[in-house]
């Protein structure tokens, strides 16, 4: 079994070529970068935002920012992209929260307190029970296979923190998912 998960970790469908080419001054590669990064960034954004439209907007903003900052990015560009996407998502989330506060006068509650039957709990919702930082760590690791170090760079944590957060986040997710009997 460990081998399977190792695959998850090893799997790294990084289109480094397009991104590298673009950051190396190949301006025409931008479209390719967009194609290559859309899916993963939208998937990532989905852990923060409710609607596909919002995700798309956030991702586009992040990609535009990449374009703008292409000569100045000095971090790992992949981590950078995730960081920017995340920041944008958080902005939009805040905006949504404010919007809701205005209309309902109440903060949205994550479904952590009273969980519905677990079989029906979507993974997205399970992720929703985690604090956003933890969600980000999980996504960056599981979906993107970034190293602790890279994740730490993107989120402003230490590698040690990342390991700790990831461990407890996965444990929590496991506790939610396991009773549902993942066959």
């Amino acid at each position, binding site marked *: 079994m460990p081998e399977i*998960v190792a695959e998850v970790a090893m799997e790294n469908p990084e289109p480094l070529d397009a991104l590298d080419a673009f950051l190396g001054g190949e301006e025409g590669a931008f479209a390719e970068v967009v194609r290559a990064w859309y899916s993963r960034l939208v998937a990532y954004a989905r852990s923060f935002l409710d609607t596909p439209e919002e995700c798309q907007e956030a991702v586009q903003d992040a990609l535009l920012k990449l374009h703008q900052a292409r000569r100045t990015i000095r971090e790992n560009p992949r981590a950078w992209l995730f960081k920017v996407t995340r920041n944008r998502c958080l902005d939009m989330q805040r905006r949504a929260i404010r919007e809701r506060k205005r209309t309902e006068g109440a903060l949205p509650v994550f479904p952590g307190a009273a969980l519905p039957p677990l079989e029906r709990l979507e993974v997205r919702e399970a992720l929703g029970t985690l604090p956003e930082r933890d969600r980000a760590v999980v996504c960056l690791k599981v979906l993107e296979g970034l190293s602790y170090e890279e994740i730490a760079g993107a989120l402003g944590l*230490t590698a040690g923190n990342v390991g700790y957060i990831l461990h407890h986040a996965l444990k929590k997710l496991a506790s939610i998912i396991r009773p549902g009997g993942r066959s």
Partner: protein
Amino acid sequence: MTCEKYSERWTDYIFRELPEETLREMREHLEGCAACRAEVEALEAAAGAVKEGLSLPAVSEEFVRDTVRKARAQEEERRRPPFWLWAPAAAAVVVGLFLYGMFHMEFADTRSRIAQRVEERNGGLRDEALAPLAPAAPAGAEAEGGRRKAEGKQEPFQEDDKALGGLAVPTADAEMARRRADVRDASEKQVGREQFAQAPTMGIAADQPAPAPAKADARRNEAQLDASRTQPLKDSGARASAESQAFEEKITVTGQAPVVDATSTATGTLQAGGRGLGESKKEAGTGLGERQKRQQPAEEALAPMAPPPVPVPAKPEGSGPSGLGGSVPPNGAVYPDMFFDHAGVNPFIVTEEDPFSTFAVDVDTASYGVVRNYLRRGVLPPRDAARVEEFVNAFDQGYPPEYRKDFALRFDGAPSPFGLGYHLLRVGLVARSAMEEERKPLRLTFVIDCSGSMAREGRLELVKRGLEMLVGRLDGRDTVSIAVFRTEGRRHLEPSSGAERGRILDAVRALHPGGSTNVARGLSIGYQMASEIFDPRAVNRVILISDGVANEGLTAADAILGTVRGDAARGIFLTAVGVGMGNYNDALLERLANAGNGMYFYIDDDAEAERFFLQDLSGMLEVVAKDVKIQVEFDPRTVARYRLLGYENRDIADRDFRNDAVDAGEVNSGHTVTALYEVKLTGKKGDLGTVRLRYKQPLGEKAAELAFAMIPKAVVGSFEKALPHFQRDALVAEFAELLRGSYWAKDGSFAAILKHERDLPPAMRSDPETVEFFNLVREAARLRPARPPDR
């Protein structure tokens, strides 16, 4: 059933974030331990579920195209150089010739355009008021007659001219007559740099037959003859815009692309003189450096266009020493080293003529700090160093914070303590404060390389400008400290609240290069300071700024790293910033940053510095809005005339208020922006007018507009009844105006400001900002006991 052996490490194990040897040991353990196997399986299952559960949506080509298109648009927006940068000197010559021919057309066109604009806005209310002094312009009509007729504009134009003649007298009352005699001086001052811009125009004007004065002259004559109607800056904005539009039309009409292009370039230059400097916060940044940078090319571009002093037609009595067309600065003052803008002083405007006052917000406060620095050294600042709006905005306004809406607007007013019969109005803009959960406080410790090599290419100056920009974005939640290192290291600024901007800025400005580079010492002091202000709830960061050429003490990265690792583990991260190109040691900084769990950047010019200090570093601070513009529309029934205090270089043509392509200021979370107006009220009841606010979301392009009425209830009956912060603003503004040599403060004195000290409410009087302020006034009074030598 649990197993403690590797309890917290199984996640590391499945993601292989452990040394190979440890992984092997754990794998062996796993085979014999059911509890651990169960845990690993559960963790894997969770990870697998996440991976499966979040499906990867496919990208649509439409999205790709849209994104690429937007990227290009954004690129163009950013790349477009300010037009005066590429206005070649040669073009200036062509312009001269061309303007000659175009003069009348342009003039006529502009006039009618403005008239039309006014009509549109006011339903003809100001038909009379607006028209120029100029008699009908036959030459213009001839030159452009066909076209104008075709557009049906000739009639209104002539009506304007007829209406105009009698205007000056009725609007002038006794008060105005008093101010009027010298108004030209004021207008000259006001025009400032713009005079350069107008010089060539006027040179040509001098050659024109008398009945057809050039537009600039007409404008100027108008200004000179009637105090109440002087508004060169504002007009110039409108005029310049109208002009450029005229030229745009010209392009289509004449089709003489190359030459016309050069001409419109020059028009851009004129415009730049009027308000270019105040334009884009986004592009120009808030730093003086950028401003300075922009100004120089502008002046260079203008210089060749300025002919020697020319005779000025219809020059009125008592001309100033410099004449109008010359290149001598107003009032014979010597221009300092181009460090400061020369935007002059806004004049009074008769509401009936132009009820609109439009400007870009300005959250800069640097001017006050600069002036304070001068005064503390016992030197009176150059007058253009004092910018009224930056003085006022350097002080807390006492507005209640706004948490819900993007902006709240505050308005109050009281009789002016310095202008008898006038009122002072305060229009305040309060940007939404980030809620506590929205932004973490910052604990920033800068470790700055002040070694000799930092003097190269002005590296340290660059850093200082960047820091100045950053300081403007901090507030009371934040704490900043600075350590510096040369041959040795030392504490330079003890931890200071982000609200103590003056203190931080003083420390920043005091930085100077010299000596060798002992990075290790600097860092260890920096981390010491950072640990003193460490707050687990805050963003704790040590920012090392260096050209990385360590040559003193520990010079090897590894040796320096030892200390950094330990502190990073505690949550103090290191950001390394490389400055300058050439000999800066990239590898050292990068290794330091990696060890310190941080990032590293390099900056080598103002744009990069701005990006780092404003975007990357203060990225944790929230920008509430960009391109923020304010338009105040006064009601002529209640406000006879008005004068905006400051914002001279932020002027925006009225018509551009809703032109979202016009760049304007950016406002951060929790910031306030205040504009003061001196007004003459008619005494009639009713709202004083409307304040409109237009802005864009930080990442959006769609503009939102808010409008607020200025209700008379907010204007109190006496200055003493005004809010304490309002009272202080009045004194601060007067101080700035005196230092600036504002015409409108010519009867004022530092002593008069000091007289108000004891009348301030006690809490305000003892406020540290107030105390410091009066100390500065006293210092200024000591340096210049008499009234400013205006002329």
